[in-house]
């Protein structure tokens, strides 16, 4: 049976979401690169791209709302549209985090950044977003579970940076403002991983119809299931 127009539209909305995720991720990596190299020109470009992301997010949400009103989807179609709306929101927030990173640019020196492994942390968090979107594309519950489990790795990195920054701050001549900016960047990357986890959980809802947020012991169960 050939695909009906309504399902073609769902596919199109899904593709728009995937394109938005590419743009958001690219902007995020550009932000990490720009702050490392104190690249003012890139920083301006990142802000412009974020404005485009904001517009794209609103456009996609409007199209999804119109779809809900006009097509009244049910079952998997309903879950897909709801998931697109939620992931869209997560992506826009990741876009904002890229701007937050470059906002810290005047407060932090490349030397300070070099002493923290933000590139590695950023790549890990970026991978989580990529995998969560891949899980959305392929409706892959196992991959979504893997993304949820990866969040702990980023949390460990963030906690390690937090401890190190706290220790450095105890020194009397420590550059407190710069260290706070450093901690903020770690926090922004950690937040991006949180959004990737949320996207993964939304994919779990898409696949199973089950809302796994706020479930007691969800993480423990997840680790157990991945071991199996």
């Amino acid at each position: 049976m050939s695909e009906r127009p309504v399902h073609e539209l769902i596919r199109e909305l899904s593709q728009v979401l995937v394109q938005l995720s590419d743009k958001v991720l690219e902007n995020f990596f550009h932000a990490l690169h720009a702050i490392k190299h104190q690249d003012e020109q890139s920083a301006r470009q990142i802000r412009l791209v974020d404005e485009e992301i904001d517009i794209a997010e609103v456009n996609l949400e409007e199209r999804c709302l119109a779809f809900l009103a006009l097509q009244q989807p049910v079952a998997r179609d309903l879950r897909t549209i709801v998931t697109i709306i939620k992931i869209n929101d997560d992506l826009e927030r990741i876009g904002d985090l890229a701007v937050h990173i470059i906002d810290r640019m005047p407060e932090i020196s490349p030397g300070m950044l070099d002493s923290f492994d933000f590139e590695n942390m950023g790549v890990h968090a970026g991978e989580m977003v990529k995998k969560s979107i891949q899980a959305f594309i392929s409706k892959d519950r196992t991959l979504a579970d893997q993304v949820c489990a990866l969040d702990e790795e980023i949390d460990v990195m963030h906690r390690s940076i937090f401890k190190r920054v706290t220790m450095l701050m105890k020194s009397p001549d420590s550059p407190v403002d710069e260290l706070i900016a450093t901690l903020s960047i770690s926090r922004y990357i950690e937040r991006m991983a949180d959004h990737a986890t949320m996207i993964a959980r939304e994919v779990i809802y898409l696949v199973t119809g089950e809302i796994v947020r706020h479930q007691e012991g969800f993480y423990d169960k997840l680790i157990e299931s991945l071991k199996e």
Partner: protein
Amino acid sequence: MVMTADVKETSSGVSAQKATRDIYLPPARKKITGGGTPHIVAREFSIYYSEFEAVKKVSADILSKYVTAIIGPSGCGKSTFLRSINRMNDLIPNCHTTGALLFDGQDIYGKYTDEVLLRKKVGMVFQKPNPFPKSIFDNIAYGPRLHGVSDKKTLADIVERSLRKAALWDEVCDRLDKNALGLSGGQQQRLCVARTLAVEPEVLLLDEPTSALDPKATAKIEDLIQELRGSYTIMIVTHNMQQASRVSDYTMFFYEGVLVEHASTAQLFTNPKDSMTEDYITGRFS
């Protein structure tokens, strides 16, 4: 979201609330008190037209005072199943059944079942409004008269009560003596509901009751179903899946005579368990 909270007194005397999540019910669908027991029970119930098995070994419990929708493609057996509940299929030559179909624990197809009494308790409204070519009053009073009510005051009370229940009283109270065929299509259909209610049934069977009505009249019938929910066990056959999801608490999906899935409407329309149900309600059916 329905939230409840377990409040406990801690050692410090401060109450700690642990929020727990309850099953979500749309605001319009309140839980029914005194309902929810199996009212109509089918066990391995089949309906045959000569050799053809139109409904195949259906087993299901229809819960009292809730609304159950029956959906499925044309020819899937949904109307046949509905009509079997008040033995409308008896009128079709060579139609016979196997298995059990119980109403209030009594075998509907039992040897000693009184079809007239059954049809009094299990009323039916059809796709096309079919008022008698009589006055509005006489349409409603027809059933009670047939069952022996002759007192004018009693009949007038029944007519008013039935028309009020069917949300038609305000529109027709000043012209009860006028011919029912002069009413609009939507009013005629509500009149048919009122006529069914006049004999005080326990079950209402609605066979595509709005397919011949415009959106405004459809909305009135749907509102009426919500009003009657909780007082009657209602079963509705509909091709309009949005209607099924709007008005019903439970939904049965039939395909080629088989009951594929029977679940709460919220579950069936958000996360059906059977892929065939999913394909049908999302329009992916080949």
